[in-house]
């Protein structure tokens, strides 16, 4: 069965539809690999205590996300944040969790071109929108995005745990303003925290990325 035909809505109770319960159907779809759901993590499989109780309210679970230009089918709990979906369902671990509370910016991704903290966005709210992560910057032929190349050339960042968040913020900045001043660059990156405090080289990298962007 093609994944595109998978039913989008789960009711509060299992209703049969042509002899197949919706929940059973979706479980089957997940197990068969038609949709991606690799690891359990905070998304309970139906074996914990809540398995006995009816689900609270009607929630669509199996949704389509547009991630890095690809349509990805994924089983999403209603309370799930985008960073958890990206990391634990779609295997995109380049997006990091630094604080999980919108304080550090390590989880920054682009949604329709604008930087967002993926720890503070509910996955269900970004259906149909273009999500871009660090994994989506490199071209298929291996050519790095100008911001990535500039970081490599300037030896930007130290531990780099914050790096993907910074790179996404910088990408959004240069998309809007390919000729920023150093202060404008700093302002655009001010939602991202670097505990190694390599801010000087980070700004050097962004200024170089701006040069690459203008030259491209």
């Amino acid at each position: 069965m093609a994944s595109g035909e998978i039913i989008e809505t789960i009711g509060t109770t299992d209703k049969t539809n042509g002899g197949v319960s919706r929940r059973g159907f979706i479980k089957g779809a997940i197990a068969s690999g038609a949709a991606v759901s690799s690891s359990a993590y905070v998304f309970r499989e139906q074996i914990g205590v809540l398995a006995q109780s009816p689900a609270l309210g009607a929630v669509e679970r199996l949704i389509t996300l547009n991630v890095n230009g690809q349509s990805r089918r994924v089983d999403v709990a209603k309370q799930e944040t985008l960073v958890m979906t990206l990391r634990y369902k779609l295997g995109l671990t380049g997006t990091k969790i630094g604080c999980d509370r919108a304080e550090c910016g390590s989880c920054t991704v682009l949604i329709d071109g604008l930087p967002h903290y993926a720890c503070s966005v509910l996955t269900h709210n970004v259906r149909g929108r273009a999500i871009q992560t660090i994994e989506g910057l490199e071209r298929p032929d291996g050519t790095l995005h100008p911001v990535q190349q500039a970081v490599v050339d300037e030896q930007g960042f130290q531990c780099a745990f914050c790096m993907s968040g910074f790179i996404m913020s910088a990408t959004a900045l240069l998309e809007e303003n390919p000729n920023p001043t150093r202060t404008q660059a700093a302002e655009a990156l001010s939602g991202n925290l670097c505990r190694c405090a390599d801010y000087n080289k980070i700004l050097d990298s962004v200024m170089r990325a701006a040069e690459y962007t203008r030259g491209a």
Partner: protein
Amino acid sequence: MPDYKLIGKNYSTSDLVAKVTGRAKYAEDFRAEGMLFTKLLSSPMPHARVRSLNTRAAERIPGVEAILTADQLLSVEAPNEAALTNEPLYEGEPIAAVAAVDELTAAEAVERIQVELEPLPFSLDPLDSLRPNGPNARSDGNTVVDGEVKTIKWTETDFAELAQGRLPMGEVPQEWSYGDLDAGFAEAELVLDETAFNQSLSHQPLETRTCMAYWQNGKVYVHPSVQSTARSVGRIARYAGVSPDDVVLINEYTGGGFGSKGSGYPQIPIPVLLSKMTGKPVMMRVTRREENFIGRARPGIQARAKIGFRRDGRITAMDLFVVQDGGPYGASGDYLTAARIASLAYQPLAMRARGISIYTNTPPRGAQRAPGGVQGITVLSPVMDSAARQLGIDRAEILKVNAPKGQASYRERNGDESHVTSAFVREAIDKGMEIFNWRERQARSGQRRGSKVTGTGVALSSYSAGSTGMDGLIVLKPDGKLYIHTGIGNLGTESVWDTSRAAAEALDMPWEKTEVVWGNTSRHLPWSASQGGSQTTHAHTRSNWAAGLDAKRKLQEVAARDLGEDPDAYEVANERVYRRSNPSQGMSFAQAAERAIELGGRYDGHELPEDINGMTVKSATALAGLGLMGVARDNFEVGGRSMSHVVGFAEVEVDIETGKIKVLDFAACADCGTILHPRNLGGQILGGVIQGIGIALSQKWVFDRRWGLLVAKKFYSNRPPGILDLPHHEPMKWAAVDIPDPFSPIGARGIGEPPVGAGSGAILCAIADALGGSYFNRSPVSADMILTELERLPAAHDLLMTHV
């Protein structure tokens, strides 16, 4: 300086592409089939005893696979810390851990554990605990003397000093001195007696101390977030109850540590043991909230410094007394290191150091970037600044007058005399003054524009910069490539690559033809220095240079054997070994590698030097027969202790209406020997400086004093500097004197530690300068401190009060 091809040149480290594309895997990025997840039950109280712990209801939850409690762990001797405890000594200390099929089930199980806690007395301030009837943080005492927990109380008479705003100086277990202190003070033109406070400070690496573990065929595979690779294996083996040979540690990328993840951490046994119990992989994902408690912190100090100065600024006598906020566990020696570093940076003609560490029910302390040195420099820099002001001499000159020079001597933590390999501190200060334009900048001191007043400041910070005696291990293979193995770690300093270049340099090997092997003990790594304490740059340029020279000698011998004449007649360059008199006679590296394998013995690692470490022997044995092996222990001359120095210059602007402090400019100059990799050096210097700026301006804990609970536990409330808190209109400036250390081949020394104190010290002096010489003797300086000072209002809290 020799004409190096790699040393001193900029390049891009080979881990960068993995990092910028998101392919680099940190601990939490690993997955294993059937992986379980852990959640911790942590203490809600600062000090309590577990009266009962009932896990039955939690175990009944479907999906719960195992619950680990303190009783199932190996016992740990006081005052050391275990992974789990029945007597939590700080809020957030783990009591039990649940492994379940997912994190939500584990969290629910934690909620179902019935735990009855008996609250016990707690202490948040060393001075409270030192009072005659003050509380002890631990049931067995309030301090540690020679590894033994004891109780020390001071008298009411001792405490009379506190009412005068001075640190009381009662009985302390540690003391050393040299020179004639009384004569020094008698001779002095100016004597200052200052009481000061430096806060405790969480490390807050952006990656928490997450760890995943699984067992396979009796071996335990661990994916932790640690700083050191080779040096973490032994500790993990002890935790797991296996031989170090049965530990496979995989950790290629670590999201910062700053000392807090040196060679493992006490919570690693949790996933390791839960995985053993369940037979499944276990991921312990540490949250930011948990990291704030279990993630280590720098011990704060309450200090008193009496310093005598000659008319020219030279220190005749220094009497330093330090009370350390020691947290609940261990025996941090930061308070003694503060004195050690003071004896080095300021070279007092006579000195006495006294101190004590007092346990408190606050998060555990650990080494943090220049442990002890930062506290000493942060507290003493404003005293030096004040003395210069009172003596009418330049505030940078007073640092030069006292600066270490040549093989300067200093005192170790126990008071033993020691000396450094070299010091070019005056040169560093001169160069720093030049790049900052210090003399002209000072004209702006106290200048007011609207409500904003400008101030400038300077501080000198010194610290240990490297160890010796480590092993190097390289293999030149028939594919013509050089494989450089290293057991240090990759927490962001990039010294994995920067030190590996020493081996390539020794062989004139193009960097593109090398491959660095790191971060996975199954890939045969040599015994290496701890990735901490600024050790690796020094230790492993030496060890890799030694391995490079060993390989070079073997290349010459292999060539001489086949082509005749003496090995010394052969040159190694351009990926060939050839006769100096006739360069056409020789062989390529690839050919020599094949020939080395045919010859066997010491050429391909079948015979090894006798003085290398056992770990290196095992790794070299596994690599034997794969090519021409360079393997050697660093036996180069040791000419003293390797120490580096950074001088920092700051310009700040203080808004006297709002109390807001803005850092306008900063420049730093280092004396750290030969520059290995300019961009990384600049990153280390300025990154350290900025961490110091956080000490001076923003980071602290706030505790609820009634309940002993941490209030400031978020990045927002305990805030490291962000990009807008720093000068960003143009690049911050850094420089280094770049004079090779005479006692090390290549001559490079470490640099991670000293910049931090240069940052905190210079900023505090600049704030005082803006206020016309008002010194707070306390960090961080907040807006309300500025405003109450300007309004001459009483301070909101006592000078020495902790965590407010």
